[in-house]
């Protein structure tokens, strides 16, 4: 017994050492050649030591869930060490769990987002909770050359899909050659992210487990992309070639007949359905901790993936919990009620109604954990800089106007009234943990001073009407602004607070709530005055995903669509932006193709300094608490977590490490 224990500890130590050696600190630590070679040395040393141990041990090192052990005994599954890759990912858990049980969660639609859904996708790499450090996950390591043009991915040797077939470099090449470059599936070719200059990336198989992606110019964000599961382009790591082949006309001449039997007309329609990476079809092989086994319009069931390549520090294969049961609950109020009555294993609360959850703590058998949400602003406002009306366009484009609007917001009042004073009153900008962050951005015109706001507006020449109630435009009409919004997770009362504050400066503000689809259409065609959205994707990893940031003129706030069209079409469409904006777009482009750390830092600073000083997005309060209710008995749930888009929300709470202290009572 002691012998076995000792072994597993040695395995763990050597591997965690390797894991830490592979850590890449985004931006902060540069990967010098000498460092890289050290990494390689370490891992080869580890390799030799490990392979010795493996030949000696067989079943001794890894343990598995009883549910799988039964299947192994019945001959339905190979033993656990044959299912895991040579070097599985080792997750350090707080307490070693007990196998079994079910997690319950709700989603708005079948196959839609639910609280635990981040646990159902994995990527080559992953980030820590700050979205700052990137470590290899399903890949053993990811290397790149000096100037970020060639990236080499080393898949964990022996990694398998949930049906037991090996996951190899061929799966990645398949995705690129037969899916992205198929003219029926993608009539206009792969997405532009894979282009540097005019040329597409080259995907190359180096050996069974190693593949490389090379670009003609530097493309550093690929590191971030490979660690961010939500990015739809992370899907290069998600297509099981052996499964997808049956739907592809080039490999199955009867693919059209097959598609027809599923109700489609041609093969590519069925292929598109099965291609879905975020919500894989039941039965599609996957590499995530749980795989979907049944789909109905009322609920989905996910069951543990017997081949999931992750173990805890004692060698127990993760996840601990057997099943995830996801009910479809269409109504928002009903979902809230279900959380409040303990209908889900873990779920987010509505902050303004926290007392209801508190009161129910005993009867619904849950406890409340004080998690935080890393939205830099619960809701930020932006005025349409490309407004169709020349007078409004001129007003909104005046920086003094945006400064006035920012200082007119009483952030403290919003915080105290709606967030119990627990949020941060600050300007909307990137997260303080980002390596090139400047604290001045957070305080830039984020104080409250109505007089200053009025002085700024007076300076602009916006006169009051005869009653001194509203301000007038230069043409004598009342200065009216419609704020088009769609309720997200922020508290809707916030809108009313901002409206009142702005009215004090003589602005005639009309709040108009609309359907998200309508808001998107109106704003994309530039037919809005002002709109708002939350400031997520502010972690270091997310800020550097190409054009994903909310500050991008065409993303969610749509503050300068015409300029964006102009830039995107290289001057063919849209309206030519002013020089400072042209330069900003060029700086962003250069930043995404930074050659080294120095460029990454300095260009990153320039990009965000410009966005912050231009006040295109005016922040309110950010980093609000997001209390969650957790059923008593659910263990390994961290007491405090900052979650956000950059850390793929649910991914950051490591659902695969959750366990029930009494699994039999949670089936």
């Amino acid at each position, binding site marked *: 017994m002691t012998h076995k224990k000792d072994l597993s500890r040695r395995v763990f130590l050597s591997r965690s050492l390797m894991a830490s050696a592979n850590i890449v600190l985004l931006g902060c630590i540069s990967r010098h050649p000498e460092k890289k070679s050290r990494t390689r040395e370490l891992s080869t040393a580890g390799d030799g030591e490990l392979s010795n141990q493996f030949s000696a041990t067989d079943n001794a090192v890894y343990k598995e869930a009883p549910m799988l052990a039964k299947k192994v005994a019945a001959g339905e599954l190979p033993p656990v060490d044959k299912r895991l890759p040579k070097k599985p990912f080792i997750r350090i858990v707080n307490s070693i769990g007990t196998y079994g049980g079910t997690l319950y969660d709700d989603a708005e639609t079948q196959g839609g987002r639910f609280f635990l859904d981040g646990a159902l996708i994995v990527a080559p790499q992953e980030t820590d909770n700050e979205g700052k450090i990137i470590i290899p996950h399903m890949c053993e390591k990811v290397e790149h050359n000096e100037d970020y043009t060639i990236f080499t991915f080393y898949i964990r040797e022996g990694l398998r899909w949930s049906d037991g077939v090996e996951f190899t470099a061929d799966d990645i090449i398949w995705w690129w050659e037969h899916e992205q470059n198929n003219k029926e599936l993608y009539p206009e070719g792969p997405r532009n992210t894979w282009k540097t200059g005019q040329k597409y990336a080259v995907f190359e198989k180096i050996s069974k487990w190693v593949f490389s992606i090379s670009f003609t110019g530097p493309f550093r964000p690929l590191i971030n992309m490979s660690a961010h599961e939500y990015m739809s382009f992370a899907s290069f790591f998600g297509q099981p070639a052996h499964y997808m082949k049956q739907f592809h006309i080039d490999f199955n001449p009867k693919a059209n007949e097959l598609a027809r039997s599923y109700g489609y007309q041609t093969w*590519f329609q069925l292929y598109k359905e099965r291609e879905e990476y975020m919500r894989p079809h039941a039965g599609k092989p996957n590499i995530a901790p749980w795989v979907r086994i049944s789909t109905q319009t009322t609920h989905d069931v996910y069951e543990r993936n017997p081949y999931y390549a992750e173990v805890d520090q004692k060698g127990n294969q993760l996840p601990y919990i057997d099943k995830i049961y996801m009910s479809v609950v269409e109504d928002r109020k009903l979902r809230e009620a*279900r959380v409040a009555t303990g209908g889900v294993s873990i779920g987010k609360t509505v902050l303004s109604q926290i007392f209801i959850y508190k009161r129910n703590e005993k009867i619904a058998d849950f406890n409340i954990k004080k998690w935080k949400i890393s939205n830099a602003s619960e809701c930020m406002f932006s005025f349409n800089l490309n407004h169709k009306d020349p007078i409004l366009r001129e007003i909104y484009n005046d920086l003094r106007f945006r400064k006035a609007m920012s200082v007119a917001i009483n952030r403290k009042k919003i915080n105290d009234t709606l967030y119990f004073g627990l949020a941060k009153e600050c300007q909307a900008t990137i997260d303080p943990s980002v390596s090139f962050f400047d604290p001045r951005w957070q305080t830039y015109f984020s104080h409250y001073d109505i007089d200053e706001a009025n002085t700024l507006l007076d300076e602009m020449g916006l006169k009051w009407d005869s009653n001194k109630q509203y301000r007038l435009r230069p043409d004598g009409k009342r200065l009216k602004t419609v704020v088009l919004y*769609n309720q997200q997770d922020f508290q809707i009362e916030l809108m009313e607070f901002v409206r009142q504050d702005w009215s004090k400066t003589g602005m005639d503000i009309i709040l108009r709530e609309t359907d998200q689809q309508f808001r998107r259409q109106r704003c994309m065609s530039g037919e809005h005055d002002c709109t708002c959205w939350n400031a997520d994707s502010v972690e270091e990893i997310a800020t550097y995903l190409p054009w994903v940031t909310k500050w991008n003129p065409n993303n969610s706030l749509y503050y300068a669509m015409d300029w964006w069209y102009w830039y995107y079409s290289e001057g063919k469409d849209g309206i030519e932006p002013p020089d400072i904006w042209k330069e900003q777009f060029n700086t962003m482009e250069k930043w995404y193709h930074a050659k080294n750390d120095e460029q990454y830092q300095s260009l990153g600073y320039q990009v965000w300094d410009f966005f912050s000083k231009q006040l295109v997005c005016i922040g309110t309060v950010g980093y609000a608490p997001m209390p969650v209710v957790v059923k008593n008995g659910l263990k390994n749930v961290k007491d405090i977590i900052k979650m956000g888009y950059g850390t793929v929300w649910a991914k950051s709470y490591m659902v695969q490490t959750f366990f029930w202290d009494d699994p039999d009572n949670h089936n």
Partner: protein
Amino acid sequence: MKLLKYVIKRLSWGALVLLFVSFFSFLIIQLPPGDYLSSYMARLEKSGMSVDNKSMVALRHSYGLDQPFLVQYGKWFYRFIQGDMGVSFIYTEKVETIIKERLPATLMLSFSSLLVIYLIAIPVGVFAARRQYSLWDFLAAILGFIGMAVPGFLLALILMWIAYQVFGVSIGGLQSPQFMDQPMTMGKFIDLIKHLPVPIIVITMSGTAALIRTMRATLLDELGKQYVTTARAKGLAENKLIYKYPVRAAMNPIISSGGWLVPELFSGETIAAIVLGLPTIGPILYRALLGEDMYLAAGCLMILSGLTIIGLLISDIILAISDPRIRLE
């Protein structure tokens, strides 16, 4: 023979109506700007994801949404008459499978609600009419008006909360999650019975209230007629008199409107079903309309219209049988 001819005639008219319904539902679904993909993109954006234009072009091509309306409709209709309802965009599942999955619960809820409505409304209506302007009549009237006025979704939330607090019934759906996907056992059956009252009360509330008013009003009309006075003068026992003649006559409008109740139960319960999380067709149709998932929406509408036509036909036949004065022409 006459009956058969009548049924055939009605059914062929029904088919024509269905044709119109299909065309207009298809048209109306496509009326709002955008299509399934623009609503899909809006949803993606709401969950913080981004989709580039190239993937959208690819998806639009694959869904055939780049074709003109009439081509899309023609293709769909051609497949529909062959029994193929297409695939839902939202659920990526055959429309047929989705409807099949949801139909049993829908039918069970609708017919048990119909039964409850009749069982409560007819006796209460008769009672209220016989004791017009008594305390009981006013009480029935008050309850009836409240039932008609209270919005179903609000009542649903309140009742669910009470069921949870007092009886410990889990909130939402027709079953506790641990019983889903399990074969029917005694425990599962009891669990189902526990979950039924709230939805049935919510769904039947307004229908019952309306029917009580109808029953009371028509019976009052009948009670004032001369044949009732004559019968009473001849010394017919009061109960026999009431139930044999005026009640039977007063039932006619209720029977003839029975056919309408079917679609009303299907669609009227939609809001309540969404709030209650019921596995019926209503919420699916609602989501399909919101998401501009035209195949699913058209499929649901066709099923609902079909059921309505059949429901009306059945109620007409029953009417003819129950009241010999009515002829099938």
